């Protein structure tokens, strides 16, 4: 039995792109002008879509510069990160001394009015 136009047209995009065409689809296409027109439209549309990859937009100049500078920026960030990692003990100790100092100062200030 011949396939209906609706059934054939459901398959047409995949038929064009992936070559999924059974004998019954091809038989229908050989007889049906409307479906052949639809096939031509899909062929043209999909070929045009493929060609769009080469049609590129104008890139903002600042973006290009920023992309080129990624290794430098990333390198600077990495060196800060690795410096902090390597000297973590020193930074933690320093921070602890600062916190202890601040706590001591607050405690000392809080005690002062009571002794006066």
């Amino acid at each position, binding site marked *: 039995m011949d396939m209906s136009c*609706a059934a054939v047209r459901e398959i047409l995009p995949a038929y064009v792109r992936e070559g999924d065409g059974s004998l019954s689809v091809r038989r229908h296409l050989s007889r049906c002008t409307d479906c052949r027109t639809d096939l031509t439209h899909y062929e*043209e549309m999909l070929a*045009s879509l493929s060609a*769009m990859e080469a049609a*590129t937009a104008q*890139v903002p100049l600042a*973006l290009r510069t920023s*992309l080129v500078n990624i*290794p430098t920026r*990333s390198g600077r960030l990495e060196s800060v990160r690795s410096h902090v990692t390597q000297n973590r003990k020193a930074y933690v100790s320093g921070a602890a001394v600062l916190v202890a100092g601040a706590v001591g100062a607050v405690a000392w200030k809080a005690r002062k009015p009571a002794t006066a």
Partner: protein
Amino acid sequence: MTPELVEACKAGDEAAWTQLVEATHREVYTLCLRILRDPDDAAEATQDAYLKAWRALKGFRGDAMFTTWLYRVAANTAISKHRSRKRRRTHETGVGDEVLSQIAGGGSTESAASSRLEVQDLERALAVLPDHYRSAVVLRDVYGLSIDEIATQLKISQTAAKVRIHRGRKKLKEMLYPDSPREEV
């Protein structure tokens, strides 16, 4: 894009990186623009994509083409951005016009000229295609990503990806060929 150039980038050669950016950034920016339809968002996504690519380069084993890998990174970044900015959706026709003027302004359309549909007509039709169909069609039919890759990027099943591509193509065809023969039921 030669494997030697990619290898040089992996070794941290900054001059090679400049060449790589020069050879690919127009395509990557345009891919982001086609998904996001906003030049500022596209520029931001492109920047994030290249930063990710630079950090992940060491893991690139060369089993896929480098540009395909880069498109995958860019698509992933643009789609994530698209999800997070859904709150400030712009009127699609207006945004599409801005994108169109950008692509028409700097477009290297020589290879597209051989096909009969104008790039501007395609861009206009893509601009009014619902977001979920547009991303799927652009990734499949413009950038040649596989169904599997598209499903992963869009976080949907392969069947859902196929359905989106199919429906998107159908809608696009209806817009581009309004006089196309009507389907018999």
